[in-house]
């Protein structure tokens, strides 16, 4: 019975194909009369065998096993056979691993999932989705190559940020500054690596990599697209995956640098911050940025715009859109656009390994210098600062502040550090935007 059905199906397919072929050949005979000059319009009748072979040659399996020698990468350059074949398979498996991290382990799923799926799509042979006319390429050109999406994300983050804790204890802003040592320490590390001849990073590339230490996704993407777009994929993936790993990376460093007594320091309760203070603050910071470092105003301006809308209290609808709809839509596009840079020919290069390595160093240095800064501040008279909140100076809002709180509670269950840690946390965002501005101004 089964055999009969199979035979019938095969016969049916053959008839269907041959009728299609016949139709096509009729068209083909008419075509020359219209004197078409286009080569692709003249259709030459092919035998069934040829057609099946032609179809088989266009499948993904063949494209992966036996790559087309003329295929160009999304940027229009020649690719090695490895990047066309095995490299793509490796990248697709890597995106599966990223799916697992995002879904099973909860690693920043909001961004990691779109990035990973974008990466999966970008590694499909033949379809060229990440090319200039594929939809990923269009998304990339629409908002990433001109740094639009990170700026919109920054507006949304601004609308979500509460500067109250910082305003009630201004000196904790210094902790957010100290953590930026992570950025510049890594910059030195990256140029030292190229000095040793291990990799060949230019100063621009080294700067783009080092900004991972700012632990701020949009800032990293902003700088990477400006200074080293060819490294964007690796930098974004490193940045977001380490931000997700903050609860694993930070506590050992925090514990190693503090004594038990320091970890139990209780901080004075935060004073009440008036609405007017919160309203004046964004404009004040922006004014300072205009005066001191105009290069940082795209980031700080967008951030403060979002925050100003929120604190004004009269544009609840706009505030709501920034915090929810707009940032969600932009996150989808940003993720897919970054994912398009996970194409094998751009990601599977030795530099990626070094970027991953430098990224974790950047995070660790930032955490350590934040904690050390808090210890230095305790040497001066005044209210004592619990050094555990220093680690929150790397931005990663609000994850880093939660980590400070958690570690603090391990030693004293009544010691609530969360709100105290939010101060350095949001100062870290401003600090990394300033650091980004400095790097841009150097290369401008």
């Amino acid at each position, binding site marked *: 019975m089964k055999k009969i059905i199979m035979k019938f199906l095969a016969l049916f397919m053959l008839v269907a194909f041959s009728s299609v072929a016949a139709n096509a050949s009729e068209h083909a005979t008419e075509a020359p009369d219209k004197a078409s000059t286009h080569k692709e319009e003249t259709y030459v009748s092919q035998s069934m065998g040829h057609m099946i072979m032609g179809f088989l040659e266009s499948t993904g399996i063949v494209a992966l096993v036996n790559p087309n020698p003329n295929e160009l990468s999304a940027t229009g350059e020649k690719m090695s056979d490895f990047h066309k074949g095995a490299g793509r398979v490796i990248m697709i498996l890597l995106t599966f691993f990223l799916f697992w991290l995002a879904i099973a382990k909860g690693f920043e799923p909001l961004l990691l999932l779109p990035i990973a799926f974008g990466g999966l799509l970008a590694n499909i042979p033949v379809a060229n989705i990440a090319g200039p006319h594929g939809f990923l390429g269009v998304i990339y050109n629409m908002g990433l190559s001109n740094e639009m999406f990170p700026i919109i994300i920054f507006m949304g983050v601004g609308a979500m940020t509460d500067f109250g804790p910082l305003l009630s204890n201004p000196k904790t802003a210094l902790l957010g500054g100290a953590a930026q040592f992570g950025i510049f320490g890594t910059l*030195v590390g990256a140029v030292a690596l190229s000095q040793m001849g291990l990799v060949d990073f230019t100063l621009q590339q080294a700067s783009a990599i080092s900004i991972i230490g700012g632990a701020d996704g949009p800032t990293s993407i902003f700088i990477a697209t400006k200074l080293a777009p060819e490294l964007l994929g690796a930098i974004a993936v490193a940045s977001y995956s380490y931000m997700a790993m903050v609860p694993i990376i930070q506590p050992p460093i925090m514990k190693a640098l503090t004594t038990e007594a320091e970890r139990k320091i209780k901080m004075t309760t935060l004073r009440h911050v*008036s609405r007017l203070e919160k309203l004046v603050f964004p404009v004040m910071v922006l004014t*300072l940025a205009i005066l001191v470092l105009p290069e940082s105003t795209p980031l700080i301006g967008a951030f403060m715009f979002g925050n100003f809308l929120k604190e004004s209290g009269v544009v609840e609808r706009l505030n709501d859109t920034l915090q929810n709809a707009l940032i969600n839509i932009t996150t989808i596009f940003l993720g897919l656009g970054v994912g398009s840079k996970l194409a094998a020919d751009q990601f599977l290069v030795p530099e990626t390994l070094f970027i991953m390595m430098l990224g974790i160093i950047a995070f660790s240095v930032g955490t350590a210098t934040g904690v050390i800064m808090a210890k230095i501040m305790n040497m001066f008279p005044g209210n004592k600062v619990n050094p555990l909140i220093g680690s929150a100076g790397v931005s990663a809002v609000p994850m880093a502040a939660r980590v400070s709180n958690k570690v603090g509670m391990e030693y004293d269950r009544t010691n609530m550090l969360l709100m105290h840690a939010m101060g350095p946390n949001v100062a870290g965002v401003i600090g990394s935007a*300033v650091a980004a501005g400095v*790097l841009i101004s150097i290369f401008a």
Partner: protein
Amino acid sequence: METNLVIEGFKFMVLGMGTVFTFLIIMIVCMNFMSNIIHKYFPEPQANADVPSSTQKDNKKIVAAITAAIAHHRRQG
């Protein structure tokens, strides 16, 4: 050229961290200044005095409504 690169990196570090700290210190000074001015000249209206009275009023209204409802219910019963 070879030795320059790391020295360049350190230069960036000094410049960058200098700017970050200068910016944040100015910001802290301005924040304190602003808070002082706001507390001195634009104090928030005493929220504490208003809030309880309004809730008390509300409570009285609620109590009145409940009593009326109970009375109504009893009359019916």
